[in-house]
């Protein structure tokens, strides 16, 4: 019998393939399979009952799921845009600093160093209606005499979560955009000044096209992050009260572990991944266009 002999390149690549298969492909295929079963963590035998698309039909016709989906898109849109504007402003200010720029850059990264769980606890305390800092400050300043239910009110609860998200991640944008600003050649700006451009024109037509790819990379990274938002929300409101701040992953997390319905949760997760894919494709297209505009090769 002739033994199969692998070529040297294939042999060299084999360990990488095995590792990839073990840590990515196998869990993915397994979770995809389990989304077609009524798998409950407490009933291991249910993993072998195939129910076809029943979970998917249930997810797609579940109104609560779609509300959570819509709310996640809303959070993504508001948080990403706000982070982008604030990050851009911060990066431009830091870039202008002639002294102490390194210290400023390090300070700017502080929020990124906090674990999201800690950020969640910190903002949960800040926004606590009874002993929280925000309400106490507002009451002491005489701006209000009542306890504002930040984490309860139908609009304020989402606003509080968005503020926590923005605080923790604006620096991602700031750092990437700052890298863009620092890598940018200075001659086009000088040429624009000589040609008599206003500061706004210089920014809009010279600086912005250069830094757009950096901003879009930050957008892509953060869109994946926010679409998976869990830790901060879990700590601050856990999707409540009355599902007012329920996001995709708080819902999926509760279904998977609280309710032990892993099959259903996996089906939800696969539908939710669509959201991440959509945003990633959108930003990558934008990125390609932006790079073309500044003449870089894709």
């Amino acid at each position: 019998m002739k033994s199969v002999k692998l070529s040297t390149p294939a042999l060299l690549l084999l360990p990488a393939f095995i590792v990839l298969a073990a840590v990515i492909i196998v869990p993915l295929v397994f979770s995809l399979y389990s989304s077609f079963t009524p798998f409950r963590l407490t009933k291991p035998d249910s993993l072998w009952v195939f129910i076809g698309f029943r979970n998917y039909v249930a997810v797609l016709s579940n109104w609560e799921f779609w509300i959570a989906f819509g709310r996640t898109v809303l959070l993504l849109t508001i948080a990403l845009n706000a982070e982008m504007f604030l990050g851009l402003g911060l990066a431009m200010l830091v870039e202008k600093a002639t002294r102490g720029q390194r210290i400023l850059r390090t300070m700017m990264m502080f929020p990124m160093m906090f674990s999201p769980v800690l950020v969640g606890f910190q903002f949960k305390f800040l926004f606590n209606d009874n002993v929280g800092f925000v309400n106490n400050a507002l009451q002491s300043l005489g701006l209000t005499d009542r306890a504002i239910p930040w984490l309860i009110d139908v609009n304020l609860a989402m606003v509080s979560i968005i503020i926590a998200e923005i605080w923790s991640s604006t620096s991602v944008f700031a750092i990437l955009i700052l890298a863009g600003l620092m890598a940018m050649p200075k001659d086009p700006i000088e040429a624009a000044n000589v040609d008599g451009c206003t500061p706004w024109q210089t920014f809009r037509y010279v600086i912005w096209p250069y830094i757009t790819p950096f901003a879009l990379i930050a957008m892509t990274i953060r869109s994946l992050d926010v679409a998976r938002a869990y830790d901060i929300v879990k700590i601050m409101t856990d999707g409540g009260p009355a599902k007012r701040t329920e996001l995709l992953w708080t819902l999926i997390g509760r279904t998977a572990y609280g309710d032990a319905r892993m099959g259903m949760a996996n089906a939800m997760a696969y539908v939710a991944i669509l959201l991440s894919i959509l945003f990633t494709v959108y930003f990558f297209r934008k990125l390609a266009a932006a790079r073309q505009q500044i003449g870089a090769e894709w």
Partner: protein
Amino acid sequence: MKKLLCGVCAGVIALTLAQAGNAAELPGKFDGVTIDAKLIGGQQYEKLYERIGEWEKLTGAKVNILSKKNHFELDKEIKSDIATGSISWCVGSNHSSFAPQYPDIYTDLTPLVPAEELAAFVPNLIKASTLDGKLVMLPRAQFDVSALYYQKSLYQDEEKKTAFKAKYGYDLTPPDTWAQVTDQAEFFAAPPNFYGTQFAGKEEAINGRFYEMLVAEGGEYIDGEGKPSFNSEAGVRALDWFVKLYKDKVVPAGTTNYLWDDLGQGFASGSVALNLDWPGWATFFNDPKSSKIAGNVGVKVQPAGSSGKRTGWSGFHGFSVTESCANKEAAASLVWWLTNEDSQKLESAAGPLPSRTAVWEYNIEAAKGDAYKTEVLNAFQEASKNAFPVPPLAEWIEISNAVYPELQAAILGDKTSKEALDAAATKATEILEDAGKL
């Protein structure tokens, strides 16, 4: 008198001999055996685990603690173990609210523990630990039922007494019914600086509070046929209690986001008049280092609902032995050791309630001379007489997760109590149907 003394002496000797007799059987000898355990972790639980070393010395066995986590985390880990078929450990911490979720993994302890030892536990707790005829755990000295804590000074203020009597037509004394709690809470409330009362507002906590209020109003959570029946008139009355207090701003605005720690800290901050809470807080509330109301705390048996029945949602921690354990006798001996009289005396000295009758008596005796401790023990002993566990359903936590957002929706005014309870009952019914129970 002499006769009486002799009787007592004889009793003591008999008791000592009986204990010595038991000690010969238990803990037993298990040289070379290693018991893997998954235990609940946390400051308040650690003291007991120091006694494991002593058990190891006596039996010659070894205990290998695989994980120490809070119950929610431990629950996830156990579920993952069940899912992957890796229940290779022997002893696990358990809880009455979680136990029905794992019907098959724990063994029946009845044949492994002497009957007279089982008889030494509070009978209700042994009953609540028995699922489908199997005694799945032995309760440790972490029995939980709530009693009513209140600020004493509010009831000594003559001005308040007069004003209250004029308004409500009866004397201002610590409340005995939930209707009185409502009156008094509304009377004391002065938001945003002072609140009449408060309640846990999410997850199993609010569902549990609603459950006990429902029982006190004469309703049933699950009827005789196993169907959810909490959307009854009694259910609406029970939920309306929470809704009214929230609407009238008698409770803190953030209460639907509060869990036990927030409530404990809130009452200790001195900004709440009445607080239905667990025994574990008793010391904390009366300690000047942690509480602004130390020295001003009163404790009373939990109030009664309109049916005359008192609230009494209870839960308790315990230890279980797995069905797959290779040495069940050794594991059961460890479980017995952790729940025996000495262990319970040690654990309950810090405040938690024991699950053995003799330890109750011992604690009350030991508290003599300490007025606060005696008041606490008496109140909780009375409270524990009214205790009842959650319905023994594997789906209890799942039903809680489906019901609590609806309770919150009613409390926040998004739905009426009836609408919310109907929606919740539909979801709970679906869960039970999916599980093949209906």
